[in-house]
């Protein structure tokens, strides 16, 4: 028997569940795949319907979670195997080598500054580059650098003719002596009484909706890319720009709803948050530049949460946002790399085209690609969309006793709902380990 709990996924749901349990006096192992906790919420600029700065309300929770005496945070780590049953699970975790000694690193950023190798910046959705020696993002927790072995010159290029490594700048400049090229992946065995799955979502790749020209046209971006583009810590420092070489500030933005959701060819379900996040993104655009006029192309506006309908009304009234009832048919591009939207205005029953500066695709959100692997490891069932299966009167219980699921990994929901579920999952887990 163990009175500890394993939480898989360090987004807002995993953080909340960990905090609740830690406050109850239970020991929590939080395993996060990426180099920092924070998850998708850390990538958002603001949250609806209050326009709170996302990282500003999340960062204190990240810090509390990390600093709590009852938590062990294992970042850059993955769950490999689980055996046992409720009350007594044995978990094998692979802790990947960061090539940086976490105990010594001060997070000063000197290695990053001097590192000569560049890599795509995944935290910024691949917009822009970062260094091979890097902090996952500005507010990363733990504030420990790591070296990307796929891009590090020393690790990819081999030795010179006279048998010397080709690079080692980071090691030379690190005053804490934290760089350790000999660090190895580690396997850690944990004994826990309950498990909470909180692995969240991936944005759906809209490339297969060829009619929308994503990747073909530079000024067609996804909502997650837009969040980074408008965020002060993003690749443009929060200066909202087009991605075409002209670098122009957009003045008209079209938000396309239901991209890959509510669609029998893609994902049948409604992703539940896109109506609101597009409304928020359109409001933010106008706050950045009052000349910006946004158009939101929708089928139905699903503003069903607290304060949501008011938020939509305010967008229309105060932030120059026009809602057009239509599912956009096709996006073309004119000679100036401006997206041209073709659609039927279903209210006026007319086929129209509209040339805009930027298109934002509200893509569906789908379970993380490794949900299937995790389901196999935990023996839990997934539903037809690969969300963890739960039931209406046990909404955080998976099909295996002692294993719970909260947040977007078990179905479409927004941040407050994910947090509420996280607390519910924490309470259910506590019943087992008490």
């Amino acid at each position, binding site marked *: 028997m163990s009175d500890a709990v394993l939480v898989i996924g360090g987004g807002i749901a995993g953080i909340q569940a960990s905090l609740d349990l830690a406050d109850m006096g239970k020991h929590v192992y939080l395993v996060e795949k990426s180099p920092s906790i924070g998850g998708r919420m850390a990538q958002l600029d603001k949250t609806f319907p209050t326009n709170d700065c996302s990282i500003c309300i999340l960062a204190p929770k990240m810090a509390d979670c990390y600093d709590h005496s009852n938590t062990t945070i294992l970042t850059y780590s993955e769950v490999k195997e689980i055996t046992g049953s409720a009350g007594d699970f044995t978990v094998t975790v692979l802790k990947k080598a960061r090539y940086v000694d976490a105990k010594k690193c001060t997070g000063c950023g000197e290695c990053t500054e001097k590192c000569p190798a560049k890599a795509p910046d995944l935290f910024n959705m691949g917009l822009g580059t970062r260094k091979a020696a890097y902090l996952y993002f500005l507010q990363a927790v733990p504030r420990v650098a790591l070296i990307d072995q796929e891009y590090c010159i020393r690790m990819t290029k081999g030795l010179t003719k006279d048998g010397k490594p080709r690079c080692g700048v980071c090691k030379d400049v690190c005053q804490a002596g934290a760089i350790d090229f000999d660090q190895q992946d580690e396997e850690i065995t944990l004994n826990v009484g309950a498990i909470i799955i909180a692995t969240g979502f991936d944005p759906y790749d809209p490339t297969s*909706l*060829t009619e929308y020209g994503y990747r073909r046209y530079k000024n067609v971006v996804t909502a997650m890319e837009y969040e980074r583009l408008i965020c002060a810590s993003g690749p443009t420092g929060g200066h909202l720009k087009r991605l075409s070489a002209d670098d122009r500030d957009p003045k008209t933005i079209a938000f396309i709803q239901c991209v890959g959701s509510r669609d*029998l060819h893609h994902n049948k379900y409604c992703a539940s948050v896109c109506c609101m996040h597009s409304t928020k993104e359109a409001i933010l655009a106008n706050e950045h530049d009052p000349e910006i006029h946004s158009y939101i192309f929708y089928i139905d506006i699903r503003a069903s949460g607290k304060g949501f309908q008011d938020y939509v009304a305010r967008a229309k009234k105060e932030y120059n946002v026009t809602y057009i009832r*239509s599912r956009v*048919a096709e996006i073309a591009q004119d000679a100036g790399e401006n997206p041209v939207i073709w659609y*039927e205005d279903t209210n006026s029953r007319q*086929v129209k085209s509209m040339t805009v500066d930027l298109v934002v695709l509200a893509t569906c959100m789908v379970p993380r690609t490794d949900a299937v692997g995790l389901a196999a490891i935990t023996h839990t069932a997934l539903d037809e969309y690969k969300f963890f299966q739960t039931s209406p009167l046990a909404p955080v219980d998976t099909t295996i006793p002692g294993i719970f699921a909260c947040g977007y990994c078990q179905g479409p929901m927004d941040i407050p709902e994910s947090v509420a579920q996280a607390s519910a999952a924490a309470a259910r887990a506590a019943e087992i380990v008490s």
Partner: protein
Amino acid sequence: MSLEDIIQETKTFYCLDCGKCTGLCPVSRYNPAYSPRVMLENALFGFQDDLTYNHDLFSCLTCYACSSKCPGDVDYPLFIQKARALALDAGQHGDCAHSGTVQSLARLMSNPGVSQNRLEWLSDGLRISTQSDTMFFVGCAPYFEHIFDFDSGAIDAVKASLKILNHCGIEPVVLPNERCCGHDMLWTGDVETFRRLAEHNAAIIKEAGVKKIIFSCPEGYRTFKEDYPKYVDIDCELQHISEFLADRIAENGLDFSEVKRKVTYHDPCRLGRHLGIYEQPRKVIAALPGIELVEMEHNKEESLCCGTSAFVNCDSCSKQIRVDRLLEAKATGADTLITSCPKCQIHFRCAMTNKGEEKGPDVEIEVMDLVNLVANALGDGHNE
């Protein structure tokens, strides 16, 4: 079949009323009165007369641009096909192009007593046999050759196909009493004529005892593959010549002479969105040494229709669609527009004659069937 049955069969009730179909429809771009979404809306409300007496019911190109992207996966072209049968019962048949000649010929051919001089074009050392396991389905090309007052290119494509098959060591069966496949009859609602044509073709093919049928016309191919099984039994392997060629090229390669052309490829709706064949014609083109293939803005799944289907409701809107497509082809800088369908070729060639206009837009581009391109590269320059 009642309107209710049609709604059930085509899953029209899945319509989200989102307008994606109408936004994608090439006809709706030029004909503001026409909206697939409103057509379905009328059907779902039970306004049958608004459907059957609507002239635009026959304007749909059944090109599948709408349905291939429909979030509700409503089969709109099938809905149209069935609704046209209702309309025909009510005496509505759309405006038949070319004085209704094509439709009349199909109806004449459905009479089993009519004898045709179908193989007149067979010459120039092209070899056929009565013993082969493989049949080549000619389709309506011998008639197209005489209907239009411009060079339709249809019979040349048939000759080129035969040359290719001969070159590959196949002397196919070509039946002298073959009939129209019935495609246009089915898609304009004349199910009875279609059924007669299908039964006739099925009977003579069975009698010929062939095991495989190769088509150069994607409409015939689609009809045999998708529609015949609902009416008759064709126990043969079916293949479009682009699939046949792609297989041959992959198996042992074919010796082609150099083709100094920059080409763009127009996906016929029947071959592309109807049957999902996008890669084989491109593989065939890519196998020709020296050729350069450039894509138009709308290609593969997004390819635009040639503007008319089943030779019905061909109007200024159709012309505009063709002109747009030709302009897209021109914009690629290609010198040749390759297609794989006799009707696409006819429609593009017609648009370039600029009928009814003193000075048409500059849309001149050489239009050629894929089989002619390939046959020309097979050595003796027979079809140059």
